[in-house]
């Protein structure tokens, strides 16, 4: 037996003949904070709905604690959901909303009362018992939705872009609040977002999705430092994305230059994608780097400067603490281990913008 709390095995799902999820595999351990991350329409909500029981996969199975629950009704799963639009019951006040699940489970009055009190304290909204949902702000409704879910003591809490509608400040507060909740309650979180920063700061494990396919699963550090393909690299954080050719083990060619790297095991002369993070590009005197170039643009970004340098026919994005004036000649250098080399993806799969065309639903 595995120690996975939840396993998705070969899940596929199509709507109206259009494939939305393709052979999705995912293992989640107890008390993990797992984030599904990907552009709009990539199938995040659909995945969550399959876990919650609101959608049946066409093929594949959902295994919970070693038991196949693929066909189990939502109300029979030890899983609760915080919906994208909160979905509070408009005809009930805060207290009744939170008590809903407990009343159905026929808990005693005192138990329910205690739970409501505890949950409201947890989400920092004590005193709001008698308020109606439509008299609450977005952030407050959000927190009530969380309280309503957690009083049922689910083993897994599903959250679908719960912070999407909030402003930056509140969003950051809620982020740390959620992490605190997770640690306090020992609940497993499956969290959906298309905000890569949010994913990087909150998750134990990130699942990067694109067009219904899992691109990469790993810790935030894995995904940021070692993206497995150009899509992931491009989607997570800023990056310089170049095309190149692997000449030999530890020798790559890009922008017409031969450069030492640390990657091995590619075929001779195999075309590759190369990712270099903006903070990994070093700026040297002319002639003392890989390529020479000229500073085209500079922006002060608080902690550092963001520069664009044209070198070797490519516009490099560079983060540096030292400012170089526009027009100055520089040379760019990248340490071998900072050069990420990846197998090339299908051209068509790389174009992020194309997803926007599919966004006609909702």
């Amino acid at each position, binding site marked *: 037996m595995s120690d996975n709390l939840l396993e998705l095995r070969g899940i596929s799902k199509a709507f109206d003949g259009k494939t939305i999820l393709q052979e999705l595999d995912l293992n989640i351990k107890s008390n993990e904070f797992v984030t599904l991350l990907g552009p709009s329409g990539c199938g995040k909500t659909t995945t969550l709905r399959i876990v919650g029981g609101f959608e049946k996969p066409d093929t594949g199975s959902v295994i919970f604690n070693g038991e196949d629950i693929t066909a189990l009704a939502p109300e029979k799963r030890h*899983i609760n959901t915080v919906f994208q639009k909160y979905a509070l*019951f408009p005809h009930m006040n805060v207290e009744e909303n939170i008590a809903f*699940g407990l009343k159905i489970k026929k808990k005693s009055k005192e138990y329910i009362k205690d739970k409501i009190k505890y949950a409201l304290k947890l989400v920092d909204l004590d005193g709001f018992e008698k308020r109606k949902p439509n008299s609450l702000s977005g952030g407050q409704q959000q927190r009530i939705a969380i309280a309503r879910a957690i009083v049922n003591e689910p083993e897994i809490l599903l959250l679908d872009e719960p912070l999407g509608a909030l402003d930056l400040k509140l969003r950051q507060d809620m982020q740390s609040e959620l992490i605190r909740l997770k640690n306090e309650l020992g609940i497993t979180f499956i969290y959906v977002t298309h905000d890569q920063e949010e994913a990087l700061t909150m998750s134990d494990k990130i699942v990067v999705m694109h067009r219904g396919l899992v691109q990469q699963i790993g810790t935030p550090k894995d995904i940021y430092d070692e993206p497995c393909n150009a899509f992931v690299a491009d989607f997570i954080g800023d990056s310089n994305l170049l095309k190149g050719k692997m000449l030999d083990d530890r020798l790559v060619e890009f922008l017409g230059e031969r450069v030492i790297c640390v990657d091995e095991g590619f075929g001779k002369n195999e075309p590759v994608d190369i990712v270099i993070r903006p903070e990994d590009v070093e700026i040297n005197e002319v002639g003392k780097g890989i390529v020479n170039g000229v500073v085209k643009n500079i922006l002060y970004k608080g902690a550092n400067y963001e520069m664009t340098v044209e070198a070797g026919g490519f516009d490099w994005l560079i983060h540096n603490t030292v400012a170089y004036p526009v027009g100055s000649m520089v040379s760019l250098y990248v340490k071998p281990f900072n050069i990420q080399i990846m197998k090339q993806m299908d051209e068509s799969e790389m174009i992020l913008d194309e997803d926007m065309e599919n966004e006609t639903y909702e």
Partner: protein
Amino acid sequence: MVKNVFGRIYIGLIMLFLYAPIVVLIVLSFNNSKSRAKWGGFTLKWYSELFDNSIVMDALWTTLTLAILSAVIATVLGLLGAIGIDAMKKRNYQIMLGATNIPMLNADIVTGIALMLFMVRFLPLGFSTMLIAHITFNIPYVIFSILPKLQQIDVSVYEAARDLGANSVKAFWKVIIPIIKPGITSGFLLAVTMSLDDFIITYFTRGAGVNTLSTVIYGEIRRGIKPEMYSLSTILFLMVLIVLVMSNRASKKQVK
């Protein structure tokens, strides 16, 4: 200023044409004189005569039973219909909406004759045929009262109920029904009014010896106008008015 004057004239005319006849009717129902032109003092005589008249009392009873029963059944069927229509895909939805609309716009006399011709094939004309007819014309009003409420509901509210442990039946009763309740109430009251109000369809689908207030009034008036009929009309008017006020109250609640 000018606008104001015209506004007042307009309201005056409306009052005159719509309400003056009713006011006259009500006044006459208390008139202690058989003449329509002369005020013979205040009396409740016509009302007491009415209450002694067994045909009228039977008709009153029939009218109320018919209104309540047809409204209840139409509300149940209309609720199911609205839920079905709401769940339909775009094309079928449009078709059903049209199909619901037509009976409301159709001339009552056509509906009445059609229902009668249809039902005589398998039912003797009588209370049951009237009831079926009233249910039939009431259903669209119920559907159109409930449908907008259903459309405002976000499906995720229903899913949230399921998520929290309610099975589909419980989720429906505890969440969907309470949210659309104002629509159900106003649909029901509207159906009661429509039923109380109806004469033409009732006239064609009733059997011999079964009367509602409106058919009694019509039958009596053909034989010459008796003052009791003023009282009877007044009672009918007041019943409709009361239900309308209740229905308004219900829809005001839903705005809140």
